[in-house]
């Protein structure tokens, strides 16, 4: 069984790399290969889950480093792997009938396979350098995946590659510092103390890589750019699902395994990032006009909950953060797929041009409303449970810990709970603008998406319900073994209670009673379909539509917020823009130096030589 680990990592990577060069004419080959390999990946993940632990190693001694390829399964990586493979399969299945892969199927399916293999490598590696290598494989395949969308995606691809690539450099530096501090790359042997400058720097560098991948403030700006330009299925697999799994996985193992993290300045930094990410991103999300861009900002905002949960350093908080990572991947993947389905069936993702699709695309609507209510934390769905766990972690942090991070717990709790209300607000806007409201006349002939697109959405929506109503099941199966949370109610880890099955039963009972009442009342008198009341006038249909994009004009025109929104639109909060400015300044300086005058070059050479002599030989 153990040999399956390297096969699982390398077969998708190699197959994906091969697919890049297979001509587009052989489209069925691409689709079949991608489907088969992602299906096998899922089956292997399930099998591995049943087997339990597995290890595999291949010794590569290169003094003074030990570059052994070590693969090992842990309770944490096993379940993340299972879901990463599941998302891969869902998106491949979804893509079979969409236009996402039409232009360059080799690039599209090839990079999806490489992503899957790379993710398996990241999750299974027990060696930091190999982890970094696979991390780069995923970064590179993400670039290719965006590029597969055609010319319109070039800017998004460059921007994401530059930002994630820069954070990967931080990762490399962090790994080097870890090695300098502890003398090993083997992750299971690492316990780096964070009381020295080197230890703290190493943690911060690794954290930078993790939060850039996951998309937290202030390194999130690649995500909305991609959201605007890329195909929905690209967003669904990477930024929405797999990137979150990988980024938060790295953060969790850094916080709980690689480093010894105690309540203090580092957990304060994490909590600040978490709380700021939740609020800032959701405020921006509310005023977006494009479905995919709006969803991208939520993909950022939700990361805040995960980071905040980890920052609490309490069992229930960390477990809540990890559970939220899983839940978020499920519902955000589903939401992007729904957005993609709407875009494919109607030809637009602009909220202004859509509406009233609920009875035209009922199954998409069902999946979308379940996922939307999940992300807004409406009980008894899954988003509520993991947020509730994070809140308990925050309260427990305030109760049990000392220091600035713990003393500020009211701020974290307020940001998280208020952020949740703002999330509901922006999903109300999506539901109104896409599925409810009134249907513009030109959308009267829209049809439901094909079954191969509906199936992944409905399965994911079903998981949202299942993981909310029976939340003890995923906690017992996946989260608790991986995070050390005790699921017994009286263990002291829990501060509150939520009997989800009973609450669901009560809710259903209430629905049945209300339905019964309605049925009796409606049967006794007639039920009529009538035109909407419009003050006696009969305006044309399209003039009666109130688009959802107008909903939050009140918010964006309130004074202090108005300035912030304006600055945000101008790109004041985009690190990438500043990076660009700095980069241009450097290149201008270099251009100025490369004047082509021999004398200048000679001067520089002599100056350089003197510096080298000074440093090396200490001649003075």
């Amino acid at each position: 069984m153990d040999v399956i680990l390297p096969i699982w990592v390398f077969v998708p990577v190699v197959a994906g790399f091969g697919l890049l060069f297979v001509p587009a004419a052989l489209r069925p080959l691409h689709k079949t290969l991608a489907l088969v390999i992602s299906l096998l990946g899922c089956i292997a993940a399930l099998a591995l889950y049943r087997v339990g632990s597995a290890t595999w190693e291949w010794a590569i001694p290169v003094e003074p480093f030990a570059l052994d390829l070590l693969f090992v399964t842990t309770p944490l990586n096993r379940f993340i792997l299972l879901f990463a493979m599941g998302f891969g399969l869902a998106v491949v299945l979804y893509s079979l009938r969409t236009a996402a892969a039409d232009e360059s199927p080799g690039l599209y399916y090839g990079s999806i396979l490489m992503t899957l293999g790379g993710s398996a490598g990241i999750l299974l590696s027990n060696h930091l350098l190999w982890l970094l290598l696979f991390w780069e494989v995923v970064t590179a395949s993400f670039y290719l995946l965006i590029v597969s969308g055609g010319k319109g995606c070039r800017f998004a691809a460059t921007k994401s590659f530059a930002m994630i690539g820069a954070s990967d450099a931080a990762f490399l530096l962090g790994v080097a510092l870890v090695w300098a501090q502890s003398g090993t790359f083997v992750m299971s042997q690492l316990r780096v103390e964070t009381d020295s400058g080197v230890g703290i720097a190493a943690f911060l560098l690794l954290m930078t890589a993790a939060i850039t991948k996951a998309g937290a403030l202030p390194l999130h700006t690649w995500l909305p750019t991609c959201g605007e330009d890329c195909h929905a299925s690209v967003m669904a697999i990477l930024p929405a699902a797999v990137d979150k799994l990988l980024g938060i996985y790295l953060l969790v193992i850094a916080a709980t395994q690689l480093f010894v993290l105690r309540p203090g300045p580092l957990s304060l930094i994490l909590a600040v990032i978490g709380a700021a990410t939740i609020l800032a991103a959701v405020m921006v999300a509310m005023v977006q006009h494009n479905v995919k861009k709006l969803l991208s900002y939520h993909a950022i905002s939700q990361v805040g909950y995960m980071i905040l949960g980890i920052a609490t350093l309490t069992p229930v908080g960390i477990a809540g953060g990890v559970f939220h990572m899983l839940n978020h991947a499920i519902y955000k993947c589903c939401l992007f797929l729904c957005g993609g389905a709407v875009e494919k069936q109607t030809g637009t993702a602009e909220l202004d041009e859509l509406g009233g699709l609920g009875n035209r695309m009922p199954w998409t609507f069902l999946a979308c409303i379940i996922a939307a209510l999940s992300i807004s934390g409406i009980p008894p769905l899954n988003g509520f449970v993991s947020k509730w766990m994070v809140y308990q972690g925050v309260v427990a942090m305030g109760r049990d810990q000392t220091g600035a991070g713990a003393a500020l717990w009211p701020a974290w709790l307020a940001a998280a709970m208020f952020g949740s209300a703002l999330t509901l607000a922006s999903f109300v806007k999506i539901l109104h603008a896409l599925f409810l409201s009134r249907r513009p006349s030109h959308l009267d002939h829209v049809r439901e998406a094909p079954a191969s697109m509906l199936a992944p959405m409905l399965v994911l929506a079903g998981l949202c319900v299942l993981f909310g109503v029976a939340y003890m099941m995923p906690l017992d199966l996946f989260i608790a073994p991986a995070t050390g949370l005790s699921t017994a109610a009286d263990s002291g880890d829990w501060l509150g209670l939520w009997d989800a099955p009973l609450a669901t039963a009560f809710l259903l009972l209430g629905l049945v009673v209300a339905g019964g009442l309605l049925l009796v009342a409606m049967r006794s008198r007639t039920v009529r379909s009538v035109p909407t009341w419009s003050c006696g006038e009969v305006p044309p249909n399209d003039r009666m539509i109130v688009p959802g994009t107008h909903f939050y004009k009140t918010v964006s025109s309130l004074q202090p917020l108005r300035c912030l929104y304006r600055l945000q639109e101008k790109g004041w909060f985009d690190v990438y823009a500043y990076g660009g400015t700095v980069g241009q300044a450097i290149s201008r300086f270099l251009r100025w130096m490369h004047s082509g005058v021999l004398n200048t070059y000679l001067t520089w050479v002599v100056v350089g030589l003197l510096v080298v002599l000074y440093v090396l030989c200490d001649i003075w």
Partner: protein
Amino acid sequence: MTMNEILHNLFVMLVFPGLLFSVACGLLAVWIVRKVTALIHHRIGPPPAQPLYDVLKLLGKETLIPEAGQKVVFVLAPMLGFAGSLVLATLLWRGNLRPGQPFLGDVIGAVYLMAIPSLALILGGSASASPHAAIGTSREIKLVISYELALVLALIVALIKGVGAGATLPLSLGAMAAQTPVWSVSGMLAFLISVLCVQAKLGLVPFDIAEAETEIAGGVLIEYSGPLLALWQLMQAVCLVALPLFVVTVFLGGFGHTAAGMAGGVGKLVLVLVLLILIKNTNPRVRIDQAMKFFWFLCGPVLLAAIALAMIGRARGIGWL
């Protein structure tokens, strides 16, 4: 789950303190609101059973469904709102009447369950294909995000006062009801503002912005009639007791299980209700941007100050802060 437990839970949900009890209390509260309002207006006011007659009358009318709307959501929304308000009421009553036995959910669950009635109103309004309802929807959700900040901050004041007292489940409603934060400066501020939040959550004047009969002719409810409207009214009646009960539980020390505690609890509930009625009858409707500014830029900073006071009080052991 044994048969006994199933029967017990069915009783809890359908009779006491669930469906029958909550609806009865709710209709009684509606009557109190109308009666006290009438007294303020120097009118006689309706008889106690009038709210029930109104609902029964509506149940006997025909149902009109807008043809351009999303019919399934249009019909399901009031059902969802009613069911959600019942679960909320059951949770809060049980938490108050048997504080020693944690049941169903905690205070965070209660706050999130409170969102379901507003959400149902929004979905129903949005599904009615009416421009008036769409404007109502937009106002309702903006009202939600306005008062939610104040409500969360007020709740945090109560949490600062309560958590750490050594209870096993400090977030459960029983543990919250065991303390009386209102007898402190910060707790009093939080209590007063949370009453205003409840006012907004119930859509009572001056926060009846989403329905605003004189501007948008009922807003979210414009297309509803007959049995569906009856369900909305039942939902609002149940909420009219459940939301004040939340404030009583969190800030005023809840009911307790002694006879005196019960009587005191009813007194507190009526006190909050009367506060709501007085505010309702002495204020004109505000605009949505005014409401938003009020909750964010006035109540917000006041509550931040209250939180700071409460933190100082806790750190220094000064109870009255």
